């Protein structure tokens, strides 16, 4: 089937709910409405209101209750309406969800998924465009996954639901409906923790995830015209990082550009940059370049284009590392 990312996640949720009665959806407007982005469309109709729960408007409540359900061995899939509304739930994530297996020495676990649309580029209102994945990556005990294509979204959310540990699943809403792609239904699982080599190249490694993978691809095409062959890694999992894949690529190319929408300082780009230096210093032909959002408030829609990294800025960064 050719599906866009919304449809692909919807299909995966449907398949997992059919496969396993313990999978229960909850969140604001996920039930009757099918989610403001329609990711859970039709699932309440198909599986009943007890399995696709329209909750009160309270994010800590959604995540804290999902945790309680997970303690009872359900596999809740909670939706936060936008990443900008993750923060009221952050305490439950950092103080409980990420800790329970360790603190009880495995007696209790939290096999849950928290989904949320994230990122900019759709001219959304204030607070609806931010990317704060680094905060989650800094949080011990959780996994953080970001798909960049419909097929990966399908295979990754299924893996996330089946994962015995908590997974934060960030959906790049800019590309929710950007492309359709052939998606294998059924037992098509994409492993968590493995980056994807999207494009091979010898000159520079571009690391991206989510919506920016497409920008990296555009950049690579432009660069190819100038005879610069970029290799692209789509991280897919941000925590735990596929450090091996990063090292292998940078050791080959000797140059690295990381792109993310989040603010620069203490973003995931910093971690990747540090890792690259730690493992590949002697292979490096130039410092790792970070193409990121600024350390400012994300502008409202009229200023969004100043803020968001794009192919142009990636190309610029590549030029810089090529000419170091």
């Amino acid at each position, binding site marked *: 089937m050719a599906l866009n990312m919304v449809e692909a996640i919807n299909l995966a949720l449907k398949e997992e709910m059919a496969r396993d009665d313990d999978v229960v959806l909850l969140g604001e407007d996920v*039930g009757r*409405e099918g989610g403001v982005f329609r990711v859970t469309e039709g699932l309440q109709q198909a599986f009943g209101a007890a399995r696709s729960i329209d909750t009160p*408007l309270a*994010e800590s*409540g959604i995540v804290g209750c999902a945790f309680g359900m997970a303690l009872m061995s359900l596999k809740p899939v909670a939706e936060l309406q936008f990443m900008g509304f993750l923060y009221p739930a952050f305490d439950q994530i950092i103080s409980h969800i990420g800790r329970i297996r360790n603190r009880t020495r495995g007696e209790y676990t939290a096999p849950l998924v928290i989904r949320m649309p994230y990122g900019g580029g759709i001219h959304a209102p204030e*607070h609806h465009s931010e990317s704060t994945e680094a905060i989650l990556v800094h949080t011990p005990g959780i996994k953080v996954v970001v798909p960049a294509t419909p097929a990966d979204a399908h295979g990754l959310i299924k893996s996330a639901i089946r994962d015995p540990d908590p997974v934060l699943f960030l959906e790049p809403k800019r590309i929710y409906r950007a492309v359709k792609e052939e998606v294998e239904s059924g037992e098509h699982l994409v492993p968590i923790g493995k980056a994807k080599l999207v494009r091979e190249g010898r000159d520079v490694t571009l690391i991206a995830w989510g919506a920016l993978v497409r920008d990296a691809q555009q950049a690579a095409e432009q660069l190819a015209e100038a005879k610069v062959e970029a290799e692209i890694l789509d991280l897919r999992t941000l925590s735990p990082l596929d450090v091996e894949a990063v090292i292998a690529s940078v050791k080959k190319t000797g140059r690295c550009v990381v792109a993310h929408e989040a603010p620069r300082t203490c973003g995931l780009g910093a971690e990747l940059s540090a890792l690259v230096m730690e493992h590949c210093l002697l292979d490096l032909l130039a410092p790792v370049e970070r193409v990121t959002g600024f350390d*400012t408030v994300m502008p*409202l829609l*009229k200023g969004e284009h100043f803020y968001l990294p794009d192919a142009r800025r990636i190309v610029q960064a590549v030029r810089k590392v090529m000419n170091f």
Partner: protein
Amino acid sequence: MNFTDFDPLKGERLQVLAADGTVDRQLLPTLDEKTLRLIFRRMLAARLADRRCIALQREGRMGTYAPVEGQEACQVGSVLALAETDWIVPSFRELAVTLSRGVPLETTLLYWMGNETGSRIPRSLKILPVSIPVGSHTLHAAGMAMAISYRKLSEAVICYFGDGATSEGDFHEAMTFAGVRRAPVIFFCQNNAWAISVPRKSQCAAESLAAKGVGYGMAAVQIDGNDPFAAYLATGAALERARSGDGPTFIEAVTYRLGPHTTSDDPARYRDHAEEEKMRALEPLVRYRRFLAERSLWTEDWERELTGELEAWIEQQIQKAEGQPAPGPADGFDYMFAELPPHLVTQKRELLAALEEEN
């Protein structure tokens, strides 16, 4: 108006102006004709501007917008009771509030058009900009009221939010802090029956939201939110409490969102058109027109004239807003701190250089 006369725990609700335009004469506040007409003018202004905003969004001239249609009465009525020195802390659906307070429509348009200038509302107007994270601003209102107490001023704060917002932890903490500190704040809940697709009853199991008041040791009342007089009276009584040191008040205004949640929303997905039809019969303008007409304060001609006048003003405000320059690349940096720190100096320089190169 006496709060004890309208006990939410007994299912009582304050209503002055009924849907058929009749009034409870005992309760009707004494307002002069000019004011009675002003109420209509403000409600109509909001209604017309609101519809124009939706159209602008459809035409791609504005971003996502949250319409107010159906909720004009409680917004206009409550602001009417305020003094100019009282502070207003709105949520995101308060077009009738901001217009009543005197925030230029141009400014509000700019906000929804995606220009930060739309949140630069002069301090002197004593109204905060839109707050998107649901419920979070109730705490700001509580804190502002605490500052007013601390300074021993006679100002008060009114905070607007929806039924859905009452589920958020921040709302609870705001009610708790305000209650304990006896802060001069009015929590004005517009229960418009829906939080996007979630009906009021799925938000909380209590019979009424006003029932929450007792749990915070706070006066609370449920009012007909489509009745501007009820809002005016309840707000006035709450202000009296605030100014005399009796602390906060919770007002639940029962109203209805006649339009979509925002311009991105399709209510047909979650509610029957029949419900909307039923609620439309109860909406504020219809009943208020009847009330005015009964007193010979309304004629079709007058409304036509008024409409023309307001529409011209709206167009002019739209033109002004559309004539405003978009925020420039430096703006995002220059307002981050009182003094731009070095890393932002660098980032700003890089952006400006890149844009230069591009052109």
